[in-house]
């Protein structure tokens, strides 16, 4: 078990480092010249050259990477040229707000999605099962940005229950805050629920058809015990992996949702930094997303290992 944990930790660290290299490599190809961005488009060439030397933009790319990465390691992501602010606190605030949005949505998705999936599998071909099947098609076919339009149209436009966009901090009162966050959360949950319930359903179905479930029935156990004690326990293992996968999808989702709802989180910041070619913010943001995802996967792996006796207890013939 400790060996397994160690290897997972090393792998998570490797992923973050490799992603940082990838990000840096891609953004270094960016044609937008940083010096021109700072000095304006019509700056004299010699001034541009001087700034490039000062910023180290003429150094070989590995040297630039090392400079950036070693600073990033201690939490210094530089100063955004565009906003004239240090990147780290700016990204930090944004990711906190995104985390609130994504966290609430994730809890809903996990609880409701897994619940629906289990119900659908147990009552196969029942109403819940058919409902999940239809919802699955909708969930896969309707993109987040269209869900958000529908939500806005219905709840902000038609019913006028919710604001169409914007964000209010918690210190303006819990209800004001909640009022603004309902629509984006609802959209995210709609868009991602089906994925989780569908995969939960299939792993539950597989467990229900396995020989050990038949063996449990052969012991005369009531169906409830068979499902909860024998099938669900084993079906949860693949579901954990699915949920971790969904953290990644959710982070992709917030990019779109935050843009539509003008929610000042990391997603909107990233889109904005791309549109305005704000290199340092972009690098920091994507690196953080990758790090969060790597952590989510690590957590899933550890939970998986802890729940799976084959990993938790090595092979030892008693």
């Amino acid at each position, binding site marked *: 078990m*400790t*060996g397994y944990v*160690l*290897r997972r930790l090393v792998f998570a660290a490797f992923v973050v480092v490799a992603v940082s290299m990838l990000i840096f490599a891609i953004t270094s190809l960016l044609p937008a010249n940083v010096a021109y961005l700072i000095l304006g488009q019509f700056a004299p060439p010699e001034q541009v050259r001087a700034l490039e030397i000062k910023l180290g933009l003429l150094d070989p790319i590995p040297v630039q990477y090392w400079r950036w990465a070693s600073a990033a390691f201690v939490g210094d992501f530089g100063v955004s040229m565009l906003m004239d602010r240090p990147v780290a606190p700016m990204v930090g605030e944004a990711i906190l707000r995104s985390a609130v949005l994504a966290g609430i949505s994730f809890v809903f998705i996990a609880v409701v999605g897994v619940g629906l999936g289990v119900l659908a599998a147990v009552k196969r071909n029942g109403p819940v099962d058919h409902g999940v099947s239809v919802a699955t098609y909708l969930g896969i076919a309707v993109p987040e940005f269209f869900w958000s339009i529908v939500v806005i149209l219905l709840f902000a436009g038609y019913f006028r229950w919710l604001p169409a966009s914007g964000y209010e901090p918690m210190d303006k009162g819990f209800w004001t805050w909640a009022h603004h966050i309902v629509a984006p959360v609802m959209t995210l949950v709609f868009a991602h629920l089906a994925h989780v319930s569908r995969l939960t359903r299939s792993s539950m179905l597989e467990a229900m058809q*396995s*020989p*050990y479930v*038949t*063996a*449990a*029935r*052969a*012991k*005369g*156990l*009531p169906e409830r*015990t068979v499902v909860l*004690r*024998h099938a669900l*326990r*084993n079906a949860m*293992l693949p579901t954990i992996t699915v949920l971790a996968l969904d953290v990644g999808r959710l982070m992709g989702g917030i990019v779109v949702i935050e843009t539509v709802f003008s929610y000042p989180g990391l997603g909107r910041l990233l889109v904005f930094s791309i549109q305005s070619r704000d290199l340092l913010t972009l690098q920091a943001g994507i690196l953080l997303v990758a790090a969060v995802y790597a952590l989510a996967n690590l957590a899933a792996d550890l939970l998986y290992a802890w*729940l*799976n*006796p*084959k990993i938790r*207890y090595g*092979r*030892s*013939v*008693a």
Partner: protein
Amino acid sequence: MASSTSAPPTLQVRDLTIRYRTPTGTITALDSISLAIPKGGALGLVGESGSGKSTVGLALMGLLPSEAQVAGGQLLLDGSDLLALDPEARRRMRGPKLALVFQDPFTALNPSLRVGAQIGEGLVHHRGISVSAGLDAARRLLAEVGISDPAAVADAYPHQLSGGMRQRALIASALACEPELLILDEPTTALDVTIEAQILDLLEGLRAKRGLSLLFISHNLGVVRRVCDRIAVIYAARVVEQGPTAAVFARPAHPYTKGLLAAIPRLSERRGRLAAIPGRLPDLAAPPPGCIFAARCPFAEPACIAERMPMREDGERAARCRRLDAVGAAPWPVAAPAPHAARAEAGAPIVSARGLAKTFHLRRGLAALRWQGGRIVHRPVFVRALDGVDLDVAPGEVLGLVGESGCGKTTLGRTLLRLVEPSAGTIRIDGRDVTGLDARAMLPVRRMAQIVFQNPDSSLNPRKTVRELIGRPLVRFGLAAPGDVAARVAALLDLVQLPASYAERYAHQMSGGEKQRVGIARAIATEPKFLVCDEPVSALDVSVQASIVNLLADLRDRLAVAYVFISHDISVVAHLADRIAVMYRGRIVETGPTAAVLAPPYHPYTAALLSAVPDVDAPKRDRIRLKGEIAAPTGSQGCVFESRCPRRIGDVCATAMPPTRAPAPGHAIACHLETEELGH
């Protein structure tokens, strides 16, 4: 044995008919079968795959899949009809009245629950005892099924246990609520023969001690013979013969039973040909109107095909055959051996291996780093699948290679052909050292040495026709001009006794035996001098197995090709082989002419192996039983068999390589015991 016939039967199955709805139509899985088990009796239900025998067990338990439908009949347990009960009442009978032990101990235990909890939970539910009391009961039951450390096993998860221990745990779980009837569905099929012997001993003991009634479902006649006092033979959804085991085995009445018994290779009579049952199972979606077996029966007459035959009872025995009296004691016809080619003279060996070793690294390099005692340590894991094997095969000779799963016999076969690269040692084929040859230089060797695989489904590419499959080696080695390939394929099909029209078929359009014939045709297409046959009949039913064994014997005689014939079944090996090599954990422990290996003096492992084989003809006299199970070979200083050897003499067995004893020329036994001691 024959428990009193006056006592009311524990179980009575009357005219049970079960149908399955499938996408392609309705299949009759059981066609009005009737069985009875007296109190304390053991009934063996014997049949080949597709006969419907497992459906009987599931129907009794009330665990039939939703596609199945009981179309008629009664299931009387202690006189009351199970089929009349509601599902809840039937559920309450599972455990206290009836229990089922499944075929595959590797999947029938829940991987995420401790073994003790799984054994005790039935008691907790049915008797309402506490969980800890259930656990205590589980420990007692584990002790009863012969587990030496029940507390540790109860605390373990299934993956931590070996196959034999898991099957014991499943039996303990089935016994927990003291059922009257225990149903065993192929309980030893997934196990090695020495473990099978242990489990059968256990079942015999339990039956005597607890007065259990048993329904023993199996394809293996030898196993049924050992355990059961009555036997029912089932073929294509119908019971064709029933009677006391000894009587049925001594004088089978129904032609199918005769064929089945004649198809089994026996250690006592070797050479010659086995009886094979031609043809295949009838289509159960549209069964023939008359006798279900008529199409394959050598004694059939026109009336058999036209009219359905009821069971004819005669005292203790019953059979479903119109020509019972006419056939009488006539034996199943056996084909004559094919004409012998001149068997190659013993000369320079066609294959010769020296010091062959193969190590598989399961974990090495960075992956082998482990956290232990507060620091990082390097703990590589490897398996020494071959550990210094010497082997010679003469031209035209059949060398039988026998051993249990994990002993390295498959690796050895593949290493000889360099499908697996040896870690050390040399291989000479036709006098030439092939170990260092590159792909181009290997080509002529490859033509000379081919392979037949165990699993006929895996060995044929499902997207190629038989013509492509057999034609490819001809094209590859330039053995036929493009225009002649079709004719050569037809000739090869004829050689393996398949019609030429099969050239256009795909693998899924053939039965297991037919696929195996195509695999053999492909292997002999290159006119090899040497063939590795890797368990070529293990995946087949007995009747089909016999025909493939016969085919391989014919081909050996006609083509003078040498085989390394690999099998876990020493009876099959003994039937074909000129010489036998017995393998255990990567080493050959005994080798010699077949007759010498099968007779004393034995290596202690060979003796145990022979003693474990369930014999169809007579119950065994002396039983040699091995403790524990085969472990992964990781290299040993001493004898590889030492940990399980019933005749271990002391530390010398663990620390020193055993010397080679040679009781006779060509017979070698690697053991610390003297030859004279090995004799008894």
